[in-house]
């Protein structure tokens, strides 16, 4: 410490290291779906068939390293035919080395024997015998090597050179909620497709039921003879595994499926799987069921027919700006904790955009005595207000939220009994003339 007074020390935290590595491996999925964690400090990416998306292995590797560098993650990488060779090149070779197909033997020859992922004993023993480089090992008879250092050494050697296979444990296992139906003869008739949807959903629902799970997302994919895959999807408001209900949701969507020369395989995938306790098939049709259970099928039907964003429940949101005081939630989400302030009257219809009106007011801060809206005059009989609502200054530029944007809302009633919510934007005496707008209608 005396030699380097400004040395920063930190305790080794293996768990945090591991968590960070896992996070990194999840991020690496953007490069390849198959990512395996190696030891404490390494990742294997199986990039077979994905490098062309970046325009070649070199470009892909450069992209990966550049992104990691930008985040301050010190990293070295290499690409080779085998995990063993890539491991060795990344740690002991030149950074960013790409071994040409079948060319790892030449590149590995110069590396130290530690590059072979050997156990501790062999790594210590080999240099003592004068074997420093992998090239020296390659020159020795295999039988003697195996007798002296165990089969482990030759296995690692073979794995690096591609003579022996190596199984990697990828972090993302294939989804277990997946099933398929293959046909001896390709099918194409609409009736067959409909029947198959029923069969395949029944297959996955039976499995879900056996394991006490339910899913909220289902996807049935039709694989055509020519290799095209056509998915149809259905979502549920609450987890379920009722094959009949699912089939009813999926069937109306089948008309987009073009069977072409025929469909040979149908797969089904269940997503958002969560435990679902078994419910008793009820004895009484109406009593004893929650509101959600009876409404869920309706919400599902509507969402699957119209789309996710067309069915909602309006919940309070903490904002005093009227157009932001409502937030859209899923209809069956847990109920909101707060409510709107009943003391502040709000209109039944709120226009998406306030409409400009021309108003006449006696005094600067008075409500108007008359205003024109949509070409008709309205004489104000009674008025209430103002309720001053400023813009949220933390949201944007000063110009967007400054005094010019302050709104003074009045609730006015005209002689015919129409009740309007109008506001004046801006203040008198600031140079700019305030403008009048109508923002909504009270019933």
């Amino acid at each position: 410490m005396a030699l380097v007074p400004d040395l920063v020390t930190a305790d080794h935290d293996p768990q945090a290291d591991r968590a960070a590595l896992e996070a990194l491996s999840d991020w690496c999925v953007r490069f390849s779906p198959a990512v395996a964690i190696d030891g404490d400090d390494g990742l294997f990416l199986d990039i077979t068939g994905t490098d062309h998306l970046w325009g070649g292995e070199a470009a892909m590797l450069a992209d990966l390293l550049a992104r990691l560098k930008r985040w301050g993650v010190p990293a070295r990488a290499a690409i080779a035919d085998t995990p063993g060779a890539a491991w060795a090149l990344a740690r002991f070779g030149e950074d960013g080395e790409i071994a040409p197909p079948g060319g790892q033997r030449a590149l590995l020859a110069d590396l130290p024997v530690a590059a072979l992922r050997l156990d501790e004993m062999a790594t210590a023993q080999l240099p003592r015998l004068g074997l420093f480089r992998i090239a020296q090992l390659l020159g020795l008879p295999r039988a003697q090597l195996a007798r002296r250092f165990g089969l482990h050494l030759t296995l690692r050697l073979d794995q690096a050179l591609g003579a022996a296979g190596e199984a990697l444990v990828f972090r993302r296992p294939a989804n277990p909620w997946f099933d398929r139906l293959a046909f001896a003869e390709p099918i194409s008739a609409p009736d067959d497709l409909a029947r198959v949807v029923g069969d395949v959903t029944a297959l996955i629902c039976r499995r879900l039921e056996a394991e006490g799970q339910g899913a909220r997302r289902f996807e049935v994919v039709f694989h055509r003879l020519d290799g095209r895959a056509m998915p149809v999807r259905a979502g549920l408001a609450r987890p379920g595994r009722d094959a009949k209900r699912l089939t009813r949701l999926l069937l109306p969507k089948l008309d987009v499926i073009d069977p072409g020369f025929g469909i040979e395989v149908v797969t089904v995938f269940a997503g958002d799987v969560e435990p679902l306790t078994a419910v008793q098939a009820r004895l009484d049709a109406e009593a004893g069921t929650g509101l959600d259970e009876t409404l869920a099928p309706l919400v599902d039907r509507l969402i699957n027919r119209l789309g996710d964003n067309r069915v909602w429940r309006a919940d309070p949101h903490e904002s005093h700006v009227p157009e932001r005081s409502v937030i859209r939630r899923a209809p069956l989400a847990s109920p909101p904790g707060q409510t709107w302030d009943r003391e502040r009257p709000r209109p039944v219809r709120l226009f998406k955009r306030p409409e400009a009106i021309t108003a006449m007011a006696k005094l600067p801060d008075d409500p108007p005595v008359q205003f024109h809206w949509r070409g008709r005059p309205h004489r104000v009989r009674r008025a209430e207000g103002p309720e001053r609502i400023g813009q949220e200054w933390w949201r944007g530029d000063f110009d967007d939220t400054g005094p010019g944007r302050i709104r003074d809302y009045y609730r006015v009633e005209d002689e015919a009994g129409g009740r309007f919510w109008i506001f004046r934007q801006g203040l008198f005496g600031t140079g700019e003339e305030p403008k009048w707008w109508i923002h909504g209608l009270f019933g």
Partner: protein
Amino acid sequence: MAVPREARLAALKGQIAALEAGTRTPSPVLAFGNPAIDGCFPGGGLPSGCWHEVMGAGLEDETSAAPAAFVALLTRPLLKAGAVVWVMRRTDLFAPGLAGFGFPTGRLIQVKARDEAEVLSVLEDALSTVGVAAAIGEAEAPELKAGRRLQLACEKRGSFGVLLHRRPYGGPAGRAQTVSGSSSFSRWRIAGAPSQPPPDGPGLGSPRWRVELERCRGGRSGAWVLESSEAEHGPHPFRLVSQLADHDLAAAEPGLRRAG
């Protein structure tokens, strides 16, 4: 002439009612709590298991604010249990405003439909679902067949259906209201009415509406000025302020209709 004329008429009415009801059990009615209004309906109130048309007068034909407020108040007593589905094409319904009328917005499911036909079919779907106490749709006047379908959907679960007649923005005025026959139970026309200001000071009083019951199956028509009453003040959402001139007379002499 042993049997008086009145009694024979009552017996005949009973027979017709039995024919109309078929095997259905009589559905509960939604009463206004005032004999002047409830007397217009055959069952002493608006029955569930039927659908009702509500339209706005004048500009309200397109903005549909007063009708929406009226419907929210009208259905409020129904929503003690069960959800309400509101189907619309324009999403200018503002939940805080409905909450101000004591409407349970936590159980309000809003649906945005793409066209008229979809409004009606979603409405039909909602009405025939268990757990939906009332369903409200905003559309132009439906055809006779669509109306029949709505009626069948209402009868299935005894739910309360409302169709808010609403002209699309910028659409031609006064066209939609010309559909003559309809299978709805009742037809209402709603307009705002000047409120009674609080005696001590400025401001607006409780909202009031000019409510016309234009048509009611097996009942009478009528016109009233109603005022909203707070949710805490008893079970009925409306308070009768005044009865307008008899509706039949008013329709015959248009000059009288403005009297309110």
